[in-house]
């Protein structure tokens, strides 16, 4: 079987549900991946939703079942709305869910300071704790599957439910660089520990983009690269946290939450400057092909390191001039009043 391309839904096309007779108007594509496409749609109630479309009725039905099951445990995943088949298009199966607002983590990452990283890690750890309570692991933890909206209270949401696996079962969907087995540091079995290690590996690969040839390297060399990256971080408490997680020494999301609370929350970046640059360019390259990519707003760029240095110098000059002016005015007044 070779997977055919399903008729791409274009903006304005209408999808009529065969079973519910509801109509959806497509507003644009949010992402296309190997196992289907996600579109932004508007329902008859004028609300906006996300629609996952696939040619494989089984895959759609399976993901839907997972979403429904998980909606009882926390709100990390999009809320399921309804499942249906298209009445007009042949073999177009879909389900409709909440449209999650936010940007993929790799887009947000280069602009984050230590406080932002702490906030995001904490939100992710809490979301994982909720999920783990249902005895499921997320498994496919990658920047494109974590949508960040720093204006929301719950600032990290999970998309792509396809990888979610009951504890104890083999992991079916993963991203190699976030997978402990790929690094030779553990087995590929769904557990709380697997997720926590995956989160740590993801953070490490966000801090420094792995070399292209990584998958050809033997295990020892991969491990050495990972260890060097983690230990090279500016924030020592973050390095030890990541190292413990990657080596499977953090077994429970509660413990992860405790450890994240201990991280410093200052305004400095967590990566040294040279690394930061590399990470930023890598993130942009992978971000443009991101699957779960939602609308990307153009954000005003915060001043980089070099402009910050110049600002310091002019600021100092300004204060110097002001002080001189005040002293001379005070002197003049003193002279006048004497």
């Amino acid at each position: 079987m070779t997977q055919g391309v399903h008729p791409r839904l274009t903006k304005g096309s209408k999808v009529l549900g065969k079973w519910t007779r509801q109509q959806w108007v497509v507003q644009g594509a949010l992402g296309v991946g190997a196992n289907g496409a996600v579109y932004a749609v508007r329902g008859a109630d004028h609300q906006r939703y996300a629609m996952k479309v696939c040619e494989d009725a089984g895959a759609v039905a399976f993901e839907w079942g997972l979403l429904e099951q998980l909606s009882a445990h926390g709100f990390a995943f999009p809320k399921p709305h309804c499942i249906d088949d298209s009445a007009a298009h042949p073999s177009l199966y879909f389900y409709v869910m909440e449209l999650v607002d936010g940007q993929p983590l790799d887009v947000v990452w280069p602009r984050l300071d230590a406080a932002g990283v702490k906030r995001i890690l904490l939100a992710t750890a809490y979301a994982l704790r909720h999920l783990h309570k249902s005895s499921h692991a997320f498994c496919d933890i990658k920047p494109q599957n974590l949508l960040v909206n720093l204006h929301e209270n719950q600032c990290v949401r999970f998309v792509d439910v396809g990888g979610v696996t009951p504890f104890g079962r083999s992991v079916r969907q993963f991203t190699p660089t976030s997978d402990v087995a790929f690094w030779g540091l553990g087995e590929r079995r769904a557990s709380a520990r697997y997720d926590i290690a995956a989160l740590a590996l993801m953070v490490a690969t966000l801090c420094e983009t792995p070399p292209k040839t990584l998958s050809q390297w033997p295990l020892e060399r991969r491990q050495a690269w990972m260890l060097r990256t983690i230990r090279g971080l500016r924030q020592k408490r973050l390095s030890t946290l990541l190292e413990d997680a990657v080596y499977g020494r953090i077994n429970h999301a509660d413990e992860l939450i405790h450890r994240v609370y201990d991280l410093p929350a200052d305004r400095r970046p967590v990566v040294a400057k040279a690394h930061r640059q590399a990470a930023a360019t890598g993130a942009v390259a992978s971000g443009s092909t991101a699957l779960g990519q939602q609308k990307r707003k153009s954000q005003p760029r915060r001043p980089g390191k070099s402009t910050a240095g110049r600002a310091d110098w002019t600021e100092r000059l300004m204060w110097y001039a002001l002080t001189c002016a005040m002293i001379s005015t005070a002197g003049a007044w003193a002279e006048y009043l004497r």
Partner: protein
Amino acid sequence: MSKEAMIRQILVITDGYSNIGEDPIQCASEARRQGIVVNVIGVVDKGDMGVVGRDEAMSIADAGGGMCRIVHPVDLSATAQMMTHQTMQMTLQQVVNQELQSVMGKSTEELPPADRSRVMQVVDKLEEEVGLHVVVAIDTSASMKDKIPTVREAVRDLALSLQVRLGTSQVAVIAFPGAGEQSTKLVQDFSDEVDMQGLEASLQARGGTPTGPAIRHAISLLKQLRHDTSAVEFEDGPRRDYA
């Protein structure tokens, strides 16, 4: 359905078209008749596989009832696992579909989506519990030289994924061409883990591409295993193979 049910697959990893021995497409249809699914991954790096290679890869997969993907070395490992998983699911879905047809006169697609979702949860559970035998046939012709380290890692990675399944999983590895005049050779017989030293020693790139004989060899390995295991499990009651 019980845990002793078996799914059998052949995974061909190649970078070109066959030029020695019998027609691989015929061998793949032969496999399919025996209830064995044939998947093909074409690995390309700088250049392309060429139209001939690409067409042949697709035709082998079509004839073998499996999937075909042309990928860069970076994606090899993930693709091997995705294909194994998806084709297992396909096989099981076919079985479930047949059962549904005979019991209810409906296929999965004709069920309301909510019921479909329940059926899929059953398929998913079966997939984790069913036994799996995979033969990985690796093209070691001269042009594969630079890609062999990646292929080796991908095979190891596939075995890692299969090891943690609840059902039994056995992987065998053959290389084509074999040593000397042999068209294929057995690198590793069925086992639940991959012997990396063995792979390193015996995957040497040289010679032409006897894809057909490799598929033939894989079929005979799977058939042999079937006889052996049915003899062992005979006391547990009749075995059931998905064809």
